[in-house]
């Protein structure tokens, strides 16, 4: 069953094919990402109405929420890649782990920093050790752990294996982050949009948020393509196809 379901993916396990696929997708993804990010943020920051309670301060939501949601989305993708890389030993999946980890780490850092900047004027503190904030900080450490472990072995393949295992285990943290605000009492409020109910945000504020969410997702995809391409080139640098590629590029320049 598994064999036939994912057969169509087989060609993309070949580094060369995936390299060219990423190269083709990259300009579209990046162009759309820039467009939606600019649209969502200008709409959210300048044109959506102020909040009845928090005034203009709430507008940081247009950066905070998308980066926080996709810090978890990036982690899930990284863990899925790690799982495929470990079980099926598909090398491009292993390289995808390395490609996604730093992007996810930066998303997490953005979520934490914008959260602190939002917490100071509204709650009255930059940081509090409540379950939501702490589990999101743990997510940052998981990303940093994956990056560090992958580079900690003289034999790259071994490092990736250990890092992949950590990435998979860290998935336990994702439901903890999401449900922390329900399981325990926290200073952080509950979910506004990521729930099976009507979003508790006015439509005039919701639409720019959704556009911004899409923008962060597209940016994540675009940066992953960009980084995966360089990972593929790095690990395949001695292969004939990469040499040919380099020679033809050099030929164009000369």
């Amino acid at each position, binding site marked *: 069953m598994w064999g036939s379901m994912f057969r169509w993916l087989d060609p993309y396990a070949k580094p060369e094919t995936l390299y060219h696929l990423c190269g083709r997708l990259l300009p579209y993804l990046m162009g759309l990402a820039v467009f939606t990010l600019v649209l969502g943020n200008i709409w959210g920051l300048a044109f959506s109405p102020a909040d009845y309670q928090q005034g203009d301060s709430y507008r940081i939501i247009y950066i905070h929420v998308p980066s926080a949601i996709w810090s978890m989305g990036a982690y899930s993708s990284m863990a899925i890649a790690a799982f495929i890389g470990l079980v099926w030993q598909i090398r491009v999946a292993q390289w995808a782990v390395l490609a996604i980890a730093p992007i996810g780490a930066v998303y997490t850092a953005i979520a934490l920093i914008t959260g602190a900047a939002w917490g100071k004027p509204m709650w009255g503190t930059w940081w*509090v050790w409540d379950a939501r904030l702490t589990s999101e900080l743990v997510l940052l450490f998981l990303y940093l752990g994956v990056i560090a472990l992958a580079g900690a072995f003289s034999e790259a393949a071994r490092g990736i294996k250990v890092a992949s295992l950590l990435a*998979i*285990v860290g998935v336990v943290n994702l439901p903890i982050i999401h449900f922390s605000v329900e399981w325990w009492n926290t200073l952080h409020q509950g979910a506004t949009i990521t729930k099976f109910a009507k979003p508790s945000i006015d439509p005039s504020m919701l639409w720019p948020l959704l556009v911004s969410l899409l923008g962060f997702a597209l940016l994540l995809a675009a940066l992953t393509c960009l980084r995966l391409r360089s990972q593929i080139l790095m690990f395949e640098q001695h292969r004939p196809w990469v040499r040919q590629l380099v020679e033809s590029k050099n030929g164009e320049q000369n």
Partner: protein
Amino acid sequence: MNPRRQKRLVAVTAFVLLLGGAIGAMLYALQQNIDLFYTPSQLIEGIGDKKVKPEVGQRLRIGGMVVKGSVRRVPDSLKVSFDLVDTGPIVTVEYEGILPDLFREGQGIVAQGVLVDKTTILASEVLAKHDEEYMPPEVAEAMKGIKHVPPSQLYKESDKGQQP
């Protein structure tokens, strides 16, 4: 699926399930320690099956809604006291300092301090909590009948004698 892949699949899955189970059990055991604050009912009635109550002199956080009409300010100082409620019992918080902008009667707050007697907390820090709802002021007024006035405006209006 070939046997080697199957073996790896089982090994990785077992490893993750075991570790996930261990972390889950740990969090379950630590449940009460992960809560950021006591609610007024937990403070007065105790937590869990054994009804464990915090002791007088203990440092803790309390979180609840500020009872309407309970905010008493001491003139010529920053001293303020107010009552907190969740589902029934009321706890009094005494505080000296600047309250956060979102502090209002009816607002959720979290205060950190020392329990000075069974129902009073001498707070060293007061944080405002806000809910997950966002809406423009007009919508809030139409839907919930709430009109939030920032403190700066409130004092201007009372200076003019529009508010008692």
